[in-house]
C-alpha cells in the first residue's frame, strides 16, 4: 500500500466513525411550541373572539368554534343558532377549525378525486376566503354587507390597531377592510398553535412517550385494517415520510348515505335535499351529478369531543355513528324510516336519482342485508377507545 493510499484509508475510517456517529438516537419530535403572534394574527385573535361584529352582538367565531372544545361547538345542537336575534338555525353542523392550516384549496387529483377546500362542500379556497362568509350569512352573524362589518369593527377598542397595521384609511375602504379582517383571521388560525397542538395521547404514542392500552391498540388495528373498519382509508393514521403526524383526513369527499336529520329546520320541506359538493352556491359543480351527496371527510382529531357528528349532525355519539357505519347495509331498518309500502327508505336524505352515488363498494359499506357487520359491538368499543386517544390536551 502506498503512503497516499494509507492516508486515504485512515481518513476514510475516521470519516466513517464520525459520520456513523450521526445516526444515534432519534430526534425528540415535540409538539409545536407556542410563539408570539404577529400583529396581524393578534388582530385576528381579537376579531375571532369579538361578538360585537355580529348583528346580534352575541356571536363571534369563537361562539361556535369553542377553544375549550377543540374549536368546535360545545353543545349538541345539529346546527348552531344565529341571525339578528340568534333564533335562526344553520343548515349544517359546525366543523372544527383545528388542523385546517394543513388543508388546501379544492382540486381534483390526478385520478379525478375531489380534494381539499374549506366548508363541508369545499367551496372556499383558503381560510381567508372561508372567513368572509359567516359575517354575512343571514343565519350566522347576519351582517348586511362588508361595510356593516367594518362599521362595527370601527367601534371596537382595537380599531386603531387595525388602522395602524393596515393603513390609516383602511376603514374608509370597506371592501379592503373586510378582506383584511378575513386575512387577520387566517393569520391567527395559521400562527396560533392552539389550532394545531398535536398534544393527543396518540401523538405522544407516536413520539414514543406513552403506550396505548390493549383496548386502544386493538382499536387502532381495527381502525387501520382494510378488511375491518377500514377507517384509515379516508382518515390516515400513519406518520408521513417527512415525520409529520397524521391529520386523520385525506381531505377528500365521500357520500355516506346518512339518514335525514329531522331536527334540521330546513328538512321540514320534503322537497329539500342538501346535496353538498354538487350544490355549491356558485353552481360550478352543478353538472357533476355524480358528486351530489358528497361531503368533505373531516379530521378525526378530537372527534370524541364533538357533540354532533357528520354534516347534518344526525348522530350525537360515537357509538351510534360507528354502528351506523357497519350496520347501514346489514340492518338498514335500524337507521331509515319505512316507506308507505313498508319497505325501508334507505338513503332517505337523497333524492332517488342520487342514491346510486352512495359509497357501497368500500369496506365497511360493502355488505348486504343480513350480512354480519364488519365490526362487532365489542370491536366498535375498541375503535372508540382508540378514537378517544385523538383528543388534544392529553395529560398522563
Amino acid at each position, binding site marked *: 500500500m502506498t503512503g497516499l493510499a494509507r492516508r486515504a484509508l485512515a481518513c476514510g475510517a475516521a470519516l466513517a466513525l464520525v459520520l456513523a456517529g450521526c445516526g444515534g438516537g432519534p430526534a425528540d419530535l415535540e409538539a409545536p411550541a407556542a410563539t408570539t403572534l404577529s400583529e396581524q394574527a393578534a388582530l385576528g385573535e381579537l376579531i375571532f373572539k369579538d361578538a360585537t361584529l355580529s348583528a346580534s352582538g352575541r356571536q363571534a367565531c369563537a361562539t361556535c368554534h369553542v377553544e375549550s372544545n377543540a374549536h368546535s361547538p360545545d353543545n349538541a345542537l345539529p346546527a348552531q343558532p344565529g341571525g339578528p336575534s340568534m333564533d335562526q338555525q344553520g343548515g349544517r353542523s359546525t366543523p372544527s377549525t383545528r388542523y385546517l392550516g394543513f388543508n388546501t384549496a379544492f382540486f381534483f387529483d390526478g385520478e379525478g378525486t375531489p380534494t381539499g377546500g374549506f366548508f363541508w362542500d369545499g367551496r372556499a379556497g383558503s381560510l381567508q376566503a372561508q372567513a368572509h362568509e359567516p359575517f354575512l350569512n343571514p343565519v350566522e352573524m347576519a351582517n348586511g354587507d362588508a361595510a356593516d362589518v367594518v362599521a362595527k369593527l370601527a367601534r371596537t377598542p382595537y380599531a386603531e390597531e387595525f388602522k395602524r397595521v393596515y393603513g390609516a384609511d383602511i376603514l374608509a375602504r370597506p371592501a379592503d377592510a373586510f378582506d383584511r379582517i378575513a386575512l387577520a383571521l387566517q393569520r391567527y388560525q395559521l400562527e396560533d398553535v392552539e389550532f394545531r397542538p398535536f398534544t393527543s395521547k396518540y401523538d405522544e404514542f407516536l413520539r414514543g412517550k406513552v403506550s396505548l392500552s390493549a383496548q386502544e391498540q386493538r382499536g387502532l388495528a381495527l381502525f*387501520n385494517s382494510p378488511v375491518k373498519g377500514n377507517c384509515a382509508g379516508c382518515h390516515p393514521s400513519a406518520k408521513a415520510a417527512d415525520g409529520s403526524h397524521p391529520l386523520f383526513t385525506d381531505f377528500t369527499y365521500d357520500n355516506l348515505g346518512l339518514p335525514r336529520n329531522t331536527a334540521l329546520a330546513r328538512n321540514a320541506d320534503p322537497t329539500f335535499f342538501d346535496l353538498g359538493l354538487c350544490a355549491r352556491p356558485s353552481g360550478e359543480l352543478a353538472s357533476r351529478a355524480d358528486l351530489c351527496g358528497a361531503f368533505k371527510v373531516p379530521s378525526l382529531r378530537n372527534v370524541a369531543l364533538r357533540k354532533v357528528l357528520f354534516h347534518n349532525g344526525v348522530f350525537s355519539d360515537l357509538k351510534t355513528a360507528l354502528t351506523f357505519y357497519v350496520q347501514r347495509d346489514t340492518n338498514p331498518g335500524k337507521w331509515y324510516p319505512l316507506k308507505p309500502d313498508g319497505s325501508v327508505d334507505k338513503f332517505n336524505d337523497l333524492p332517488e336519482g342520487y342514491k346510486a352515488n352512495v359509497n357501497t363498494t368500500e369496506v365497511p359499506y360493502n355488505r348486504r342485508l343480513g350480512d354480519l357487520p364488519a365490526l362487532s359491538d365489542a370491536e366498535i368499543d375498541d375503535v372508540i377507545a382508540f378514537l378517544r386517544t385523538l383528543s388534544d390536551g392529553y395529560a398522563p
Partner: protein
Amino acid sequence: MALFRPNRIAAALALAATASGFGQTPTPTEAELARKLEQLAAELATVKAQLATLQQQRAVQAQAAAQPAAAAASAPSVAAPASTPPTNSAAAPATVLSGYAELNYNRPTRQPENTQADLRRFVLGLEHRFSPTTKMAGEIEIEHGVSSADDPGEVEIEQAYIEHQLGRTWGVRGGLFLIPIGLLNEYHEPTAYYGVERNFVETRIIPTTWREGGVQMIGQFGNGITLQTGLSTGFDLTKWDATSTEGQESPLGSIHQEMALAKARDLSLFGTLNWRGIPGLLVGSGVFTGNATQGQASTSSRVTLWDAHARWTPGRWDVSALYTRGTISNTAALNAPLVGNPTLIPSAFDGYYVQGAYKVWMQQDYALAPFVRWERFNTGKSYADLGPGLTPAPLPTETVWTTGANFQLTPGVVIKADYQWFSVNKDANRFNLGLGWAF
C-alpha cells in the same frame, strides 16, 4: 460493471472521430477539405491498427485467464474487477460510450390475460478518463419504454461517480455507485445472468439495482482478494407504506432512496470481500448496515443486509449459489402505530438460490447454455411480537424453479427463454422470452 471492453473502445473511437470533425474551424476551400479528409482517414487507419493490436493482446490475455469465465454463454465473468487499474496505452480513448437493454415477454400460463411485453430498460453509460488515474462513470436508464406523468416508465441515474486510483492496489470511488452485495447488483446486464428475469433473491431481498451515494475504497490484492468498503447513504424506514404491498414484494426495495433527495442523517457502512485466487472460482461475502429512521421517528432502527456467494466456472459449467439475509431492528415500536395494516415492517427476511448452467453448443460466435435455478425467498420471515391478534403471521417462503436457456447470438447479444414454477403463488407460473444486449 466491467469497464473498457473492446467494443466500448471502438464506440469511443467513433465518437472521438465525430467529435474531432465537429471541432474543426470552417475551411474555405474544397481542396483544404479534401486534404483534411485524407489526413483524418490516415489517422483513422493508424488508430484501427492500434486497436487491432490491442484487441489481439487482450484476446491472448483473456484466453490465458479465462478458463473460468468461458462457461457462460453470454460471457459473464467471475474475474471482472470492481476497479479498473490505470491504463496508460496510447490507444485507450478518454471517453467511452456503453449501453445495455432488456426487452421481455412474460406470459403467466394460468392467467394469460396478464401477459405483458415490456422494454424493461434501456441504459446508456458514459465513462470519461480525465487522467490515467482518474475517471468518471455514469449510467442513465429509461424503464418501460415511455416515461411521462401518465406512463409507467422511469428515468433514473443508476451510477454517477468519480474513481481515482491511488496506486496499484487501492482505488477510491465517490458519488452514486452500486453497492457490492451479491453477484448481480454490480453486474446486472442481461448478458451477465441466466434467465429472462433477474433472480428473485437478488431483487426481492437484495434490491438490485441498488445504489447509494457515498465513498468507497476498492483494494485489489495480488492474492486474488478484492476488498470494497465504504460509507454511504442508506435506507429510509420513514417512508414505509403499510397500506401497500410494496414492502411485501421487496422490503428494502420499498425504502431505498436512490440518492433522490435522500435523507442522509443516518449513514451506513458496507464492506465486501471477494476472493478469486483459483481460476474460475469466486467466493465472497458482503454486509451493509446503518440506521434507517433518519431521526424522524421516535425509535432508532438499524437495517442490516449480508450475503455469502460463490460462483464456479470450470470448463463449460457455470455454477453459483448465494444466501442473503436482512434484519430490521426495533420493528415492534415502528409497527405499533401501523397495526391492522396489510404490510407491517418485518424483523427478518432472507433468500437463497443455487444455479447451474452448461454450455452445450458453440459455433463461431453462437453459444447455447441451458440452465436451471432453484431459489427460495421470504420477504416477511419474522415479525416482532405486538401481542395476540396484532402480530402478523410470517409470510410463506416462496420457492421458484426456473429452467431455460441463454442463446448468445454474438458476444454482447443474448436471446433468452425460460419457464418459472412458483410453489406458493402458483398463478405466477410463467413462460418468459427475452432479448438483451450489452456493449
